[in-house]
């Protein structure tokens, strides 16, 4: 990595942009004051700054200085208000396009494979009905896990009105509901429950943390008999107790960043499917995401975090061509071959008749811990189809807390997460929600396209810089009544 060349690249780009902006200043200077004027050339610079800070080739403060200087330089020449641009610290930190390298600058000790940690995970697959006053419903327990951040059930839930209609909205319909659930263990301990939900799924945290070695827990729901939860270990979760398979890799920080960016592109492209080829409106968000990508690749090469011989820029160019994206500025010739999972998703998106019927609701218990790699501990805690979407729940440890000075890690997961279904189709995963607690991130990832409920098993692939980890998992679907 060459930090000096990285900063020089950004500053030279600022010079080019300033010169270009000022060549039009003669026209602009006689025009009325406009808040839009300085922003016109700002995004190009901001994207490169984002990318260079993401791979740690440039520290955030230096990037902010360059952007702030540029904003003032443009403002004083064009008589425009650089105010919004001067407040770029949040702008650089939030809403990033490029995922930050993980866990930080390359550290030989941190990049490598470790064993599965001592965390405890059990798949459950239990449905606990409840009734309180006029409202009834059920909680589906997908898994129980006990890790350094605490003990939790990963759950989905539904509520119904007295006439059996599903109740919409968040929470359990009544603030009193959570207090009506109780949990005890085989040693007579009782636990306080904290509910943490996003729409129809989330976590139920147990406090205090249950001790190791418990045989069972018992969950009591209002209006129902207690349900016993067997905590006996159940193997790896894979067929024949086969654990996750690990394949060492050695992606550069730049390649990894661009690959994760491609995942996000495919995620967004999935919202439009065949419309991408037909309407500029459908392509607009993709064009916005990829604007300046050529600058980013050049910056990564200048910073020596992306080899000029890397195939990834060419693959990205081919992906953009497949999605009818223009204006990205990539100069690498498209090709040579796209990864199988990209092709799978592209062929799905380009089908003339996309899936019109949403995937039916269902939930599948999962509890698999992956070997530590890239300084990260990761466990799958459940999967469900709700409202036509497939959600995968993960717990990630080994990452720093988002202190507000850098990009929010959970929203910029710097690893690729893919799922291959039993029919051979690939599904890309993107973070849809996250929260941090005691050193661990709880992630809710959306799969695109959604899984069919007929899927008998899935292969979950997590690709980082130092390794690809893959686990094959049978799905025992449970269905709502």
């Amino acid at each position, binding site marked *: 990595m060459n930090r000096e060349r990285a900063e020089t690249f950004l*500053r*030279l780009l600022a010079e080019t942009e300033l010169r270009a902006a000022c060549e039009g200043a003669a026209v602009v200077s006689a025009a009325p004051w406009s808040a839009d004027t300085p922003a016109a050339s700002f995004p190009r610079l901001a994207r490169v700054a984002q990318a260079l800070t993401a791979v740690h080739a440039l520290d955030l403060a230096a990037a902010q200085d360059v952007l702030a200087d540029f904003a003032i330089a443009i403002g004083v020449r064009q*008589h425009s208000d650089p105010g919004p641009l001067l407040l770029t610290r949040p702008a650089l930190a939030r809403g990033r396009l490029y995922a930050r390298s993980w866990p930080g600058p390359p550290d030989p000790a941190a990049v490598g494979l470790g064993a599965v940690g001592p965390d405890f995970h059990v798949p459950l697959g239990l449905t606990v009905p409840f009734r309180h006053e006029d409202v009834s419903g059920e909680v589906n327990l997908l898994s129980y896990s006990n890790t350094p951040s605490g003990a939790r059930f990963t759950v989905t839930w539904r509520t119904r009105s007295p006439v059996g209609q599903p109740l919409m909205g968040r929470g359990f319909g009544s603030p009193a509901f959570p207090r009506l659930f109780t949990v005890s263990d085989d040693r007579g301990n009782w636990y306080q429950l904290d509910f943490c939900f996003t729409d129809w799924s989330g976590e139920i945290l147990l406090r205090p943390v249950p001790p190791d070695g418990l045989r069972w827990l018992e969950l009591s729901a209002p209006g129902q008999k207690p349900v016993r939860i067997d905590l006996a270990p159940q193997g790896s979760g894979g067929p024949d107790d086969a654990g996750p398979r690990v394949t060492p890799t050695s992606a550069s920080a730049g390649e990894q960043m661009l690959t994760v960016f491609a995942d996000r592109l495919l995620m967004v492209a999935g919202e439009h499917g065949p419309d991408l080829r037909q309407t500029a409106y459908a392509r607009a968000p993709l064009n916005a995401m990829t604007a300046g990508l050529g600058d980013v690749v050049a910056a990564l090469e200048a910073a020596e975090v992306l080899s000029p011989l890397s195939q990834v820029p060419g693959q990205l160019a081919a992906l953009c061509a497949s999605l009818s994206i223009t204006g990205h500025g990539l100069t690498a010739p498209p090709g040579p071959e796209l990864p199988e999972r990209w092709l799978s998703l592209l062929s799905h998106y380009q089908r003339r008749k996309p899936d019109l019927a949403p995937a039916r609701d269902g939930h599948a218990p999962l509890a698999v811990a992956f070997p530590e790699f890239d300084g990260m501990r990761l466990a799958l805690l459940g999967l469900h189809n709700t409202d036509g979407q497939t959600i995968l729940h993960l717990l990630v440890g080994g990452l720093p807390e988002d202190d507000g000075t850098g990009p929010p890690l959970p929203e910029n997961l710097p690893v690729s997460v893919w799922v291959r279904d039993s029919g051979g189709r690939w599904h890309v995963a993107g973070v849809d929600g996250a929260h941090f607690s005691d050193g661990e991130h709880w992630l809710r990832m959306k799969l695109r396209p959604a899984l069919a409920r007929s899927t008998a098993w899935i292969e979950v692939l997590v690709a980082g810089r130092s390794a690809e980890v893959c686990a094959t998992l049978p799905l025992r679907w449970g269905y709502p009544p």
Partner: protein
Amino acid sequence: MTVIPDEAWFGCLPGCEARVPCGQGTHAVRWEAGSLWLPEHPDAEAEAVLAALGGEKARCIEVAQAWARHADDLSVLAIGPRGPADDIAIGWDDVAAAQQGAAGGFVFTGSAVGRPVGVRPAAGRPAAGLHPSVPAAGLHPSVPAGVQRRRLRAQEELELIRRRRTDMLSLLALGYGFQVRLAGHVAAAHADAGAGSGQAAEGRARPALVAAMTGRLGPVAEQWLGIDPDQVVVSLHAGPGWGSVELTGRGEQRRLLVALPPRWLARVWAAGLTLVDRHLVVAVSRAGWPDARVLGLRAPGAEPEPLEVHDGGVGGGHASHWEV
């Protein structure tokens, strides 16, 4: 080998003066031989102490303090003019309006420059200088400590942004002559810092210096050779001699490769000596004003020629106009 004398960087720069609104009138601020003078504030230090104790600070004192704060600030090179044609017309009304405005933005009045720019009244903006979206410190105790720390940090950052912006506007409002002299101070400070380590400049300053020289050499090279400024590639020259200038490639691959020491920015560019009689000036061999001796290149790859030059003084706004 050409020996470049080690003398003060500002030897080819005459003194210059600006008028600054201060108190009920306007006062002169002068730059002379590398120093800023406030002739109407003979005991500026005492005034600054009084102001620190709660007295009103004179605008001249504020300007001098801003000058001192930014005399080695590389942002000056990133923001300031790239050449005489790069007109940065900031007036004192703009500075006053910005001081009353919010942290984020300039409030241009355009009154000092006579341009038909729009007016953004400062009235109605928060007087505290903080962005309205940022809550004040002293949050309710129920707000988590981490959140309080972040908000406090955000407030501190905004205050720094506000002061930096006001400083920069004040310094730009002094006019072109002061703008290039301040850039000279900055370049010389970093060139001197690098000289101690045998480098062209200290490591952290090199990217900013390369960009600053590229931004200033580009337009000069365009005027000299008709080359696109984007085709000028600058590196920092370290060690003895003036450096090198070469032209390579053809068409879109054409490049003007320039290696000059960062001190060039201070000794040559700040003095307005970049292009004299169709020669690219690469060094000053005998500093002086209005007469000096420089080394000029007639063409890339050529040996530099000694040129006796004279500042005819017809450049506008303290800009020099050197002739052979």
